[in-house]
Structure formats: structure tokens, C-alpha cells
């Protein structure tokens, strides 16, 4: 039992991760319970999805899993699968735009968030990151960048760069999956159409397959840093790399397939609804 608790303790305690998770969870819960009292409450499934996503993000960053991620390539790839795909995907299924807006205290919203949002560089940066061309390039580009052997080497040696790597993967994924899964009605301002979203999800698959296949099929060890710093347990470097390649290749592509299916269903539902004369559009 004590050893079980031992594994749940952070390997390298990060106040920033704990603060992020507490805030993201707390504000969402507050917003969700406030939404319950309105005419359009948010259901239990979005709540469960958001919280599950947040929980797995916390677990891969602040438990012994983090130690394994630093000392085994394929577990590192698993960690990034959670940070870049699975965790943020589940969180964005929780309708966070609506719920978090309800959850943030009104005073804070008026005093800090609204002025920040009016600040041109912030708006420009957001517009850039949510651009239909930039977003997928950045999403795949970050996977590619942190897996460049030289970059990966220093990211695994330096605690600061390691944190930067994980945060960049997480933040970019939250933005990317928000762009893809944004549940606002079809004619809401600045919302990307379903067709474009499906194209994006399809286009990010081949590069991820290439990155994964490059690792899985390589005949030499591409990431010597795990030899230098030592692996979590004895395993051949090539076997480690092959599993890592498969983790990058298959589940990541599956996420796109699931995303497309979800969007197609929403698209069909919305087409049926808008066909009715009573359907309200904003």
C-alpha cells in the first residue's frame, strides 16, 4: 500500500502543473454547477470527459510515470500521446468554452481577462494559433521538433527544457483540439467549418505515420540519450525505439479517425436540425 502511494507521488514536483490542474478543474466544476441551474445545463458526460482528460494529464506529469518517461523512449512517447492527443481531446469534449466562461469569477473576468483579450498581441497570437493552416502545422511540427535527435538530447538532459517540451505539447494540443472540437453552433463567429476540420484531421495523419515509421523501422538507435542516462529497466535500445515508433504511429492516427467520426456525426445532426424551420441560429 505504501509503495502504491509512493508511485503516485511526483518524481519532480512542479507547482505549475499542480496549480494548472487545480485551476482547470476547480473553475470547470464551478462553471458546470452554475450551468446546471440554467436553461441549458451541461450534462454528466462532458463533465466526466473533461475531468478524465485533466486527470490523465496530471498523472503522466506528476507521478512516478514521469520518471519512466525520462528513462524510456516508448514511455516518453506514451506520455506525449496523453499530453498531445488523448488528454486535451477528452478535455475539449467537455464544452470548456461555455463551462469555463461560467466558472471564472465575474470580477476576475472583467478586471483581467477582458482587458487581456482586448490587447492586440494576445488576439493576434490566438488568431495565428487558431489559423486553419498554422494549427495543424504546429501540431505536427512540435512532435517533429522535439524528436529531432539533437533537440531531444538536450530536452532530456535539462530539467527546464524538459518542462518546456511538455508544456508546449500540452498547450498546443489544448488549442488544436479546441479548434477541432469547438461545439459552438455552425454560424458562430470565427468558427471553422466541419469540412475544413475533417481535412485538417486527415492531413495530420501521414506526417505522424512518417515520424512513427521512421523510428519503428530505423536500424540504428536514434536517441542515445537514453543509453547515456540509463533506461528505467534493461531493454534493448532498438526494441525500445520500435515500440516508441508504434506508439507515435498507430494510436496518434487513431485519434484522427475518432475525431473525424465525431465530427461527421455532429455535422449530420446539425444538418437535420437546421432543416427544421424552428431551429434557432445565433
Amino acid at each position, binding site marked *: 500500500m505504501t509503495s502504491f502511494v509512493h508511485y503516485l507521488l511526483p518524481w519532480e514536483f512542479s507547482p505549475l502543473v499542480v496549480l494548472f490542474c487545480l485551476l482547470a478543474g476547480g473553475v470547470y466544476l464551478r462553471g458546470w454547477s452554475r450551468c446546471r441551474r440554467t436553461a441549458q445545463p451541461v450534462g454528466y458526460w462532458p463533465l466526466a470527459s473533461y475531468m478524465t482528460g485533466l486527470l490523465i494529464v496530471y498523472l503522466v506529469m506528476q507521478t512516478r510515470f514521469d520518471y519512466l518517461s525520462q528513462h524510456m523512449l516508448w514511455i516518453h512517447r506514451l506520455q506525449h500521446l496523453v499530453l498531445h492527443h488523448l488528454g486535451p481531446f477528452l478535455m475539449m469534449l467537455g464544452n470548456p468554452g461555455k463551462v469555463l466562461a461560467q466558472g471564472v469569477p465575474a470580477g476576475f473576468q472583467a478586471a483581467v481577462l477582458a482587458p487581456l483579450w482586448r490587447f*492586440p*498581441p494576445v488576439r*493576434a497570437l490566438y488568431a495565428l494559433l487558431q489559423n486553419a493552416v498554422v494549427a495543424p502545422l504546429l501540431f505536427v511540427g512540435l512532435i517533429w521538433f522535439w524528436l529531432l535527435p539533437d533537440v531531444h538530447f538536450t530536452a532530456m538532459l*535539462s530539467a527546464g527544457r524538459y518542462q518546456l517540451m511538455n508544456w508546449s505539447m500540452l498547450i498546443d494540443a489544448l488549442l488544436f483540439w479546441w479548434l477541432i472540437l469547438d461545439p459552438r453552433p455552425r454560424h458562430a463567429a470565427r468558427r471553422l467549418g466541419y469540412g475544413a476540420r475533417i481535412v485538417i484531421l486527415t492531413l495530420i495523419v501521414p506526417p505522424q505515420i512518417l515520424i512513427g515509421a521512421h523510428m519503428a523501422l530505423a536500424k540504428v538507435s536514434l536517441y542515445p540519450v537514453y*543509453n547515456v*542516462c*540509463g533506461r528505467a529497466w534493461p531493454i534493448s535500445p532498438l526494441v525500445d525505439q520500435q515500440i516508441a515508433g508504434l506508439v507515435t504511429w498507430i494510436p496518434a492516427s487513431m485519434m484522427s479517425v475518432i475525431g473525424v467520426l465525431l465530427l461527421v456525426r455532429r455535422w449530420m445532426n446539425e444538418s437535420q436540425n437546421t432543416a427544421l424551420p424552428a431551429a434557432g441560429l445565433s
Partner: protein
Amino acid sequence: MTRPRHNLWAVAVLLMLAAGCARSPSPWGLHDISGLMPPLVFTLHDGSGHIRHAYDFRGEVVLLYFGYTHCPDICPTTLASLVSATRRLGAAADRTRILFVSVDPARDSPAVLQRYQQAFGPRVTALSGTPAQLRELTRRYRVSYGLGKPDADGRYEVSHSSAVFIFDRDGAARLLATGTDGAGKIATDLKRLLDG
């Protein structure tokens, strides 16, 4: 409406990112880890059982290596290669220190450490510590180690990193040598570090 201004800001952001990525080529033969890893800090004990701290070795270029004395081949080979590298420095060898940290304190008592370091000459100091002290130090330099399952005779293998972390005379992390780096290459960089 403010679209052109948005684009200007976007270009500015991209330019700053690009500027941050530009780097000049490294003058070192080994991996340059300046600024990547924290300065040398530890509390361990030596072969006479005395407590030793990192600041005891200020003024010397420190080569830090993790291993265990029962290690059949890699540890002695690496230590021999490091000793050979320091010998190539001539008189300047006196300003270097090879710290061999055993991650197997159960078998490597101070007496064992003392005998082991004597086999490698005066530049090598063998250290070890409590499991908590060793965990602290290995976590600091992001290296792993693990004790294998004992066989019928109670013998077991220990997995450890192959990294040699090199610190300058102020204790700042500067270079990283790996198992494949030869004594000549290490000596060249040590000389540059001592001169610089």
C-alpha cells in the same frame, strides 16, 4: 478590421521565435551542457567514511561518473579511460578530480571504496551515500540506476548510466562525455576547460 496589424504582430512573434533558435557551432568535442544542468551539489561519504560535499572539490575540474565496484567491465574501462585522459594533461592533471559514485552502497562499504580507488591512482575519489542521498544526486543529473535480482550466490547486477558529467573549477556543469568518447577527445576538452 485590424487585420494588417494582426499580421504584423504575427510576423514579429515568428521572427522572435526564429532568433531564439539560431545557434553558433560548438568549439567542444564533447557534448556542451553549459546552462542545461545544475551546478555540482552533493553530500556523500568517501573511502575513509568521511562526509564529502561538492564544494570540497571547488578549484578542480570534476569528472562525475556513476557505477559500482562489482561492475565487471564498463566501470573499470571508463575509469581507466578517464585516468588516461587526465594523464595526458601533464602537470595540469593535478587540477582535475574523477569522482566515482557507487550506487550500490550495500556492497560498497567505505573500505571497499578505498581499495577500489587506490587501483586507479590519486586522481580518483570513490564516493557513495545513503539511498536517499544517491537518489537526490541521480535525480539532479537525470540519470537512472537500478539493482538487479540476486542470483543463488547473492550476486546481482546494477544498471547505471554511462554518462560522465564534467564540471569546471567553479562547479558549473560544462560537458558530457559518453562511453564512446575516447581519452584523447576528453583530454582535449579538459585542457580547454582548464585554460579557459
